[in-house]
């Protein structure tokens, strides 16, 4: 077996749903075994070509090795068994937790407190990007959706998952990331209190829905574009 055969076997196993850690280890062990078989045949006096041929024959051909490994369901990854859980449920749950944590962080920093100037002195002017609320806003609007959508693509690429799952995951992560927002409402007037305002435009009357769609589309394109490009390159290299 040549290096290209090992790479092709690795790809076939990943596409078949074998967990990446099993794939890495199996390929390393097969490569090592092949080296031992080659050394054994060479020490017996075989030529390099014959030793290579014998080693490959004894190790087994690409298709039979792939079939034997794929026949073991216990070696399959959880992402292959439950793709909807990985690409749909997990990003949603992570989003909810991070969103709640950011909201909590903003609340704990004292945002919305009547004393705006002392808050601005401590954490920076909330309207500026170089302040705690500004950084949180930027992370919520750009960072978090990109991380979730990019995470879907990374996992799918590493596991050679069928593209429909990362596409669904990215679109879902982009829509959730773009549609749920929070802001600090500062108090006006004496004795008034501010608030942390949570809003979404996923439901009627869909105020600002065009911006949300554009925002979600930008995140989807920014993550799915490089992923699909990379995937096409891998498929071409192996064919």
């Amino acid at each position: 077996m040549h290096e290209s055969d090992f790479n092709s076997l690795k790809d076939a196993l990943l596409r078949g749903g074998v967990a990446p850690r099993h794939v890495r280890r199996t390929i390393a062990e097969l490569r090592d075994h092949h080296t031992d078989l080659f050394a054994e045949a060479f020490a017996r006096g075989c030529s390099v070509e014959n030793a290579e041929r014998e080693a490959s024959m004894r190790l087994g051909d690409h298709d039979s090795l792939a079939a034997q490994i794929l026949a073991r369901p216990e070696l399959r990854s959880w992402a292959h068994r439950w793709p909807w859980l990985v690409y749909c449920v997990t990003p949603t749950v992570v989003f909810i937790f991070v969103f709640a944590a950011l909201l909590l962080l903003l609340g704990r920093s004292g945002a919305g407190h009547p004393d705006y100037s002392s808050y601005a002195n401590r954490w920076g002017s909330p309207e500026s990007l170089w302040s705690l609320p500004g950084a949180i806003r930027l992370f919520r609007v750009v960072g978090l959706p990109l991380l979730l959508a990019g995470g879907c693509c990374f996992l799918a690429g590493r596991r050679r998952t069928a593209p429909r799952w990362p596409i669904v995951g990215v679109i879902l992560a982009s829509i959730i990331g773009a549609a749920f927002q929070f802001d600090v409402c500062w108090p006006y007037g004496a004795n008034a209190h501010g608030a942390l305002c949570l809003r979404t435009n996923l439901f009627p009357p869909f105020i600002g829905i065009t911006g949300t769609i554009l925002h979600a589309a930008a995140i989807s394109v920014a993550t799915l574009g490089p992923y699909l490009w990379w995937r096409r390159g891998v498929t071409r290299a192996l064919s």
Partner: protein
Amino acid sequence: MERNNPPFMSGVPELLLLRLLADDELYGYEIVRKVRGATGDAISLGEGVVYPVLHALEAAGALRSRRRLVNGRERVYYTATKKGRSRLASLSAHWRRINDGIHLALAEMIHA
């Protein structure tokens, strides 16, 4: 190279590997050589096939592995766990029953 009948061989690789690894710590290439030696070349596993069996047994808790650096090469050594030894005992009993049954059947067919 002679190939064995895969359906009839079902369960045999597990049995042989557990038997070998019950009292030794070996890596893949050594395991295949020892299987050949121990069965007088009657059973020759497709050499690459041994790894999915090893990994599946490890995933089931019947084997444990550790990496060792030998002569500058990192090898994965396997050995049977307590769970693996008890699985070996039940597999061995199962195969002895099948073996006895086949012996009986063959003897009856010869005498009939």
